[in-house]
């Protein structure tokens, strides 16, 4: 179904032709750039870090399952697992700090003030519109209304984003307590180590459980995007998809005439393939962990 945008982009393509194509090769469609290179890199790092943290951490949490012993042995023993866990934690902190630093840069570059960044149309902070969209979504779910017109960041994407903030704060602080117990017991009672253990462990379970089920579904594996939405890895999404999923953003871009700034050549085939392989591995590990958690919690719990 050709749309205005289609026509527009085809015009763009025809007017800006970098090199002539052979008769057998069709000229690739330009795509909308949703994520910057840094954001993609941070997400990839986050995946590596998070999977490592989850795998090594859960071997302890579910030490009563045979799987845990096997994984621990596979990794080279609990000490190696602990080393991996702490290295991954450092990486996670690194991702977090880098993101915050990047926010500062973005603010300097694109916004006049924090206020503009935080209260702008593309803000990550929850807004009244998010609440309205949430209620509209509920209606849509139960067949009482149309699909809401989402903007750049949907409410569930904002939820995921802040879940990471919360997780890093809670899991990170308790994790440091467990990492340096002797330092922390200089000013905290010994039993805080016990409390930190409970919080660290349960919050981690929440994080892994949520990421590997809800987040996976919401952003990567929704049936209409099946088998996988790779936008976060490639940074690109087809314009049609932007139009369908984020109509508000699309319309705003069209209205401001800045859409073209966000269009790019697709990633080379090999990059896309590599990204898919990586994504599938990560997803598989995540799902395996979910299965392990369910098994450990429901069938092997002691």
């Amino acid at each position, binding site marked *: 179904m050709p749309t205005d945008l289609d026509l527009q982009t085809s015009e763009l393509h025809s007017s800006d032709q970098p090199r002539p194509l052979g008769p057998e090769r069709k000229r690739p469609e330009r795509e909308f750039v949703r994520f910057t290179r840094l954001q993609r890199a941070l997400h990839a790092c986050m995946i590596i870090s998070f999977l490592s943290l989850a795998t090594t951490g859960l071997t302890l949490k579910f*030490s009563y399952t045979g799987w845990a012993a096997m994984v*621990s042995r596979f990794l080279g023993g609990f000490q190696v697992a602990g080393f991996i866990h702490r290295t991954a934690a450092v990486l996670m902190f690194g991702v977090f700090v880098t993101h915050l630093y990047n926010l500062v840069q973005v603010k300097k570059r694109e916004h006049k003030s924090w206020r503009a960044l935080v209260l702008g149309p593309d803000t990550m902070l929850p807004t009244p519109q998010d609440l309205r969209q949430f209620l509209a979504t509920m209606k849509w779910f139960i067949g009482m209304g149309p*699909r809401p017109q989402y903007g750049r960041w949907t409410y569930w994407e904002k939820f995921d984003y802040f879940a990471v903030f919360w997780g890093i704060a809670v899991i990170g602080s308790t994790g440091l307590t467990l990492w340096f117990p*002797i330092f922390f*017991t200089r000013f905290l009672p010994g039993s805080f180590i016990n409390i930190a253990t409970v919080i660290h462990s*349960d919050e981690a379970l929440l994080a892994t459980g949520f990421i590997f089920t*809800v987040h996976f579904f*919401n952003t990567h594996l929704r049936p209409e995007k099946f088998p996988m939405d790779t936008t976060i890895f490639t940074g690109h999404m087809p314009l049609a998809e932007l139009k369908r999923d984020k109509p508000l953003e699309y319309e705003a871009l069209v209205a401001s005439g800045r859409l073209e700034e966000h269009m790019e050549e697709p990633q080379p085939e090999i990059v*896309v393939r590599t990204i898919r392989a990586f994504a599938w591995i990560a997803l598989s590990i995540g799902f395996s962990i979910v299965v392990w958690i369910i098994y450990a919690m429901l069938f092997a719990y002691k």
Partner: protein
Amino acid sequence: MFRRTRRNLFALANALTLLLAAGIIHAAPPVPQNPSTDDCLACHSDKTLTTKRGSRTVSLFVDGKKFSSSVHGSLSCTACHADLEGKDLPHSTPLARVECGTCHSDEQKQHSHSLHGKAIARGDTLAPHCVDCHGNHDIVPVKDPRSAVAPLKVPFVCGRCHQEGTPVQLNRQIDQHNILENYSESIHGEALLKKGLIVAANCVSCHTPHNILPHTDPNSSINRRNIAATCTKCHAEIEEVHRKTIRGELWEKEAHVLPACVDCHQPHKVRNVYYAQGMADADCMRCHANEHLKAADGRSMFVSAAEIAASRHAHPRTQAVPVSCSQCHSEVNVSRVRPCETISHPVDCSKCHEDQGQQFQRSKHGQLLAAKDPNAPSCRDCHGTHRILDKRDPESRTFATRVPELCGSCHREGQKAAVRYVGTQHEIIRHYQESIHGKGLLKSGLTVTATCTNCHTAHMVLPKSDPQSTVNPKNVPATCGACHHGIEEQFEQSVHSRLVTKTDKDLPVCNDCHSAHTIRRTDETGFMLDIMDKCGKCHEEIAKTYFDTYHGKVSRLGYTKTAKCYDCHGAHDILPVADPRSHLSRANVVATCQKCHATATRRFAGYLTHATHHDPKKYPFLFWTFWGMTTLLLSTFVFGGMHTLLWLPRAFQMRRELKAEEAREEAARSNGTGAEGKATAEEDHRAD
């Protein structure tokens, strides 16, 4: 003639005296008057006084001097010659035989029951009366060298009848020959007769003076059963120079299985020579050296002299000479042509090995043997027969390294002892061989390592349930402590010791943690991890809570680096936390943490090593933290889950619509050409 005249004169004087006396006492009633010694001697001091007994002329002379110095010198003649009492002199002849038994009633009684007395009763004229041995008027105490029955004279007194050529020896049934001759050459005779050693045994020392009985009589001093008692009257310590086990008691009680003194030291011929033990072995070997010798039931009866010569019994520790055949195969009878034909019992090793024998009888093995269980082992099943070697001899079947094999021949799985066993220990031998003891013994060749017998004992093997058993829980610490003494000392001070904790509950002993037959090195990963389950058998709750902590979780994963029960509580010296000596007492706990956490502080030691979030009373803050987190978790999941589930139908709907749209585009593309390139490119990219 002269003699007769004097006698007549004496009679006349006597008669006159009597007449005078009768006249004097005529006025008073007449009193019978006993003749005094002097009265008797008035006639009997005449050395020529004789009388005829049958064809024999017998002197009636009594030496007054000798009589008055004899033991009976203070008695009157009529005290013995009672039939003269109140009689007028001269009295009629012959007088009745003197009854010594009037005074010497015991001796008389013995004599009348004795061989001699019975012969008299039978009317045997050769049988001796008191007087034949003791004499008559000149009897002196037996200690007086002049006595007829003084030790030095006894052989001759007896020999008067009991020597070759005498009527007694010729006409009566006497088994022994050359008695006096043999005796005088024997060690006893030589001592007495040649060396004048009057304490040396003479005839009566063995046969008794009056109670002489045939050796077949059970009351005889020379009966087989009594001979030991008889000999030990003098040879009181004989068992010390013979063998430890032939105690007077055993010798007397079990005379039927033991050789009697006289079996080796023949009566009358007892020589002053050393009787080489086993000197009769040659007699046994006359038959048993034959390799083809078979018993009636077909068993080979061949005995290898070489085997015996190599055995421990050829060089026993308790005696200077080899053990002889008959010391084990007792009940032989030397008077038979085949001395062994009287053997009716199997060899009883406990004759010498008395302690071991008693232990064995008490043991399960012994009980089964007594119950005639066909599977029950006897001494020979473990020790063998003729080729018995010392347990320290590497060739021995009971040498340390061979013991597991030896016990295993019955106790290995499937063998006869294992089949009847109903307890919980299985694969005993295999497990032992893989255990630290088994490896120490069999792989490292360390012969001081514990084998079966170190724990179970060699001879008093009893089931664990028996309170006397060395493996009864009560005794296990002492059993293990025999080698691991230092550990036992620690353990007996600990809260687990029966000596410290008085309780009805079962307290753990060594094997509850270390196992019995599968004992492992304690620095082995498997052991270190297993031990937590061992503690958890009793301390169930506290072990569970341990596994809720980091220490426990790492241990559960199979790593030993983190603290396990004993790292904090100690192993053998476990004490209640309240005890100041405990590793976890207030004074010691920081140092205990510092074993791993070198810089640990007191506040760090406040970490709750057994904290659980399941106990709201003990650990409320953990409990509520846990449930707070769980609530957060559940609500997030419920929210996220619901959101996702509700979304799914819509998502599928969208997918269907997209597919339909694509299909329409496809159809449009195949019809026209307008937007073909663009649409296909997009499709390709998405479907990739």
